C-alpha cells in the first residue's frame, strides 16, 4: 500500500486510450468486429419509440449517464431503441410489470404525465434540477400518477429504464475507453494478471502529473 498515491478522479484517467485502436489487432476476432461495428452504425432515428418518446428518452439518458461535452456523445436513446425494436428481453419481470416494450411505453407516458402535473411542461424541456427531482421521486416510488397503472415507478426505474440506459452506455467502446477496460480480448487474452501489472495492449493509467507520458504509452496500444 502506498498511502500517498492519489487516484485521479477526472475523465482523463486513461489519456489517449482508445479501445478501438485495438480493433484490427489480435484482441478482436472477426465476430467481435462485426458486432461492435454494427452497434457503432446504429441508426439515430427511432424505430420503436415515437419522436416524442425519443426526446424524453434522450433527456432521461442525459441524467442517468451524463456525458462530457468534450467528445461525441454515445447515442444512448438510439441504442435503447434498437434493443426494443429487436425485441431483446431480460427473460423475466416482476409480476406487476409488463414486458419490455410495453413497460417503456407505459413508463414514458406516466413520466410525461408527472412532468405535466408538477411543472406544466414536457420532461425534456425541464431544467436538469427538476428532471433529477422527478427521476429521484420515481426511483423512491413517490410518483403516483394513475398513468402508472399497476407498474410501480421504482420497478420501472431500476428494473427497466435506468437498467437499459446503463447497459446501452457500457455497450459502447467510448465508455470502455473512458474506464480503461481492455475491451474485447479474443483470441489474444491477457498475460500479466497481478497487482499493478499491465499488458502492453491495455490502457495505461495516469497517476497525476504524468499525462503526457501516459498519453504516449496509450497511443501505442494496439
Amino acid at each position, binding site marked *: *500500500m*502506498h498511502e500517498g498515491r492519489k*487516484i485521479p*478522479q477526472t475523465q482523463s*484517467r486513461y489519456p489517449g486510450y482508445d479501445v478501438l485502436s485495438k480493433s484490427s489487432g489480435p*484482441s*478482436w*476476432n472477426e*465476430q*467481435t468486429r*462485426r*458486432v*461492435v461495428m454494427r452497434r457503432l452504425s446504429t441508426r439515430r432515428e427511432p424505430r420503436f419509440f415515437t419522436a416524442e418518446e425519443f426526446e424524453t428518452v434522450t433527456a432521461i439518458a442525459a*441524467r*442517468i*449517464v*451524463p456525458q462530457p461535452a468534450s467528445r461525441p456523445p454515445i447515442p444512448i436513446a438510439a441504442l435503447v431503441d434498437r434493443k426494443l425494436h429487436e425485441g*431483446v*428481453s*431480460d*427473460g*423475466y*419481470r*416482476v*409480476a406487476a410489470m409488463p414486458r419490455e416494450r410495453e413497460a417503456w411505453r407505459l413508463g414514458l407516458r406516466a413520466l410525461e404525465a408527472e412532468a405535466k402535473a408538477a411543472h406544466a411542461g414536457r420532461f425534456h424541456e425541464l431544467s436538469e434540477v427538476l428532471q*433529477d427531482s422527478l*427521476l429521484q421521486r420515481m*426511483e423512491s416510488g413517490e410518483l403516483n400518477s394513475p398513468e402508472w397503472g399497476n407498474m410501480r415507478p421504482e420497478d420501472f426505474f*431500476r*428494473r427497466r429504464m*435506468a*437498467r437499459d440506459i*446503463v*447497459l446501452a*452506455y*457500457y*455497450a459502447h467502446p467510448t*465508455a*470502455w475507453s*473512458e*474506464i480503461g*477496460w*481492455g*475491451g*474485447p*480480448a*479474443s*483470441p*489474444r*487474452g*491477457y*498475460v500479466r*494478471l*497481478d*497487482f*499493478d*501489472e*499491465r499488458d502492453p495492449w491495455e*490502457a495505461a*493509467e495516469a497517476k497525476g502529473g504524468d499525462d503526457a507520458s501516459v498519453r504516449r504509452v496509450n497511443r501505442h496500444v494496439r
Partner: protein
Amino acid sequence: MREYRKDEPVDFAIVGTGAGGGTLACKLAEYGFSVVAFDAGPYFRPLEDFASDESEQTKLYWTDDRIVDGANPVQMGSNNSGKAVGGSTVHFAMVSLRFRPEWFKSRTLLGYGADWPLDWREMWNYYTEVEQALKIAGPVNYPWGPRRPRYPYRAHPLNAAARALARGCEALGIKWTETPLATLSAPRGLAHPCVYRGFCVAGCSTNAKQSALVTWIPRAIAAGAEIRDLAMVGKVEVDQAGLATGVRYHREGAWQFQRARNVVVAGYAIETPRLLLNSATAKFPDGLANSSGLLGKNLMVQANQAAWGVMEQEVRSYKGPPSLAITEHWNYDDKGKDFFGGYSYMSQGPLPQLWANTQLSAHGLWGSRLMAEMANYNHVVGLKIVGEMLPQEANCVTLADEVDQYGLRIPRITYAWCDNDKRLIDHSLKFMTRALQAVDARDLWTQEDDTCHLNGTARMGFDPATSVVDADCRSWDIPNLWICDGSVFPTVGGANPSLTIQAIACRTADRIKALAKRGEVEARAYA
C-alpha cells in the same frame, strides 16, 4: 451425427442438454442406449459464433418470458438460465466444487433441511469421474474435507482480485485455495489453454471452457446419440397405462412427436417443473410425477451477496476467470454460526455492463455519482458468496395464465428468504467486509440482493410421499419418466451445483444400465 426416426421409439428422449441432460446423454449413449437429446436453444460453435461482447452474448441466456414474485423476486436470465446446447454450462463461471460430505445427510447430521438418498462415498467417486472428464484445473492439496485425488490439470495462476482474497483470508486466519475450475490450464486435444480473456460468463470463444457443449456432447454424438437443437419440448405424453410414450416438441415451425421408451426431463429447476406441470392429463391432473404435490416446490437459489471496495493498486479484475480464488471455510467450520448451512466466497471479475448495472441496481448509483464510481473500475475488488438457502415449500414454480411464443403457459417463480437465509447473508457480509478491510480496500459497500443457481422443485428422496424422484432420479409415479438436473437436490449447500449435477447424472446412467440389465428399465439396448 446419427439421426433417429420420430415414429420409432428411442430408448431415451432427454429434454435438455446441460450439466444434467448433456452428461446423461453421453453416458447412456456410451452404454449402448439409443438417445435423442433435445434443446430449445441452438447448437453453437464457439470458435465461429461467439463474440467478445457482453450484449451480443446474451444470446446464450434463457430470455423467454417468466414472472418473478414473492418477497425476494429472483433475478433470472443471464444470472442462471441458458438456452443453448450445453445449457447454462456454456456461460457458467466454471467453479467445480464437491459438496461437503455431511450435506448429503444434513437433516440427520446437521439438523436442518432434508437428507439425500445418496451416500457421499459413492458420490466421491462420481465427482472424480467428472473432474477427470472436464480436466478440472485445481490445487495440489484441497484444504477442506476428506482426501480427494489430485486434480487432473494444474491450478491457474492468481490474478490480483484472487490475491486480494488470499491476503484477506490469511489476515483473518482462515484457509483459501485456487478455485477448481473447468477451464484448461494446459492443452487438451485441439483446445488451447485458457487465455485469460475474462469473458467466461459471456461464453468462451476459444473452447478452453470445459462446458457440456465441448465435453459430454461431442462424446455423446460419437457414441451415437442425436442432439436435436432448436427444439422446444412442450409436453411429455403419457398413455392410458400411465407410462410416458414420448415428447411433443416445437421445431421448424411445427409441433412434432418423438416416441421414446423412456423420457428424461433435464431442463433445470424452472423448466423441468414447468414442463411436467404443462403435461397434466386427466389421469395426472396436477402434472406428471406429482402425486406428492411437491413438484415445483422447495425451489432453492443460492445467496450471492458481495462486499465491494476500491484498492489503491490497479486490480483489473477483468483478466482471467472471474473467480480464481476461493475459501470454503464457512462451509466446513460450523463454530460460531448463528445459522444452519454454509457458504463459500470467491474473488470477482465483473465486466463493464454487469458492473455498471450492479452499481445502479444494488448500490443505487446513477448520474454523476455513477460515472465517478465507474472511473474506479480498474481498482475494484470484490468478494462474493455462494450461500446455502434452506428448502421451503412456499418457494416454488407454478404456471401463470399467460403463454409464451409457443403457446405454453409461462412459469411464475415465487421466492422469499427465510430468517436463516438472512442470518447467513448477514454473517457473510460482515465477514467479507472484514476481509476487504484487512487488505486496505476503501469505499466498502455490500451488495445485498443477488442470488444464483436454481435447485430443488423435484427433490429426490426415500419415499413417494415426500419426494418426486428416487435416488436413481426415477419418478415414483411413472416408472419410465426420469428427472436428471439440479431439480432433484433436496438441499443446495454453499457450493456451486454443476459438479454435483454432473456427478448425479453419471450415477444415474450407471443405475439405469444396471436396472436395464435386470429388466427393470425398458430399453432395446438390453432387451
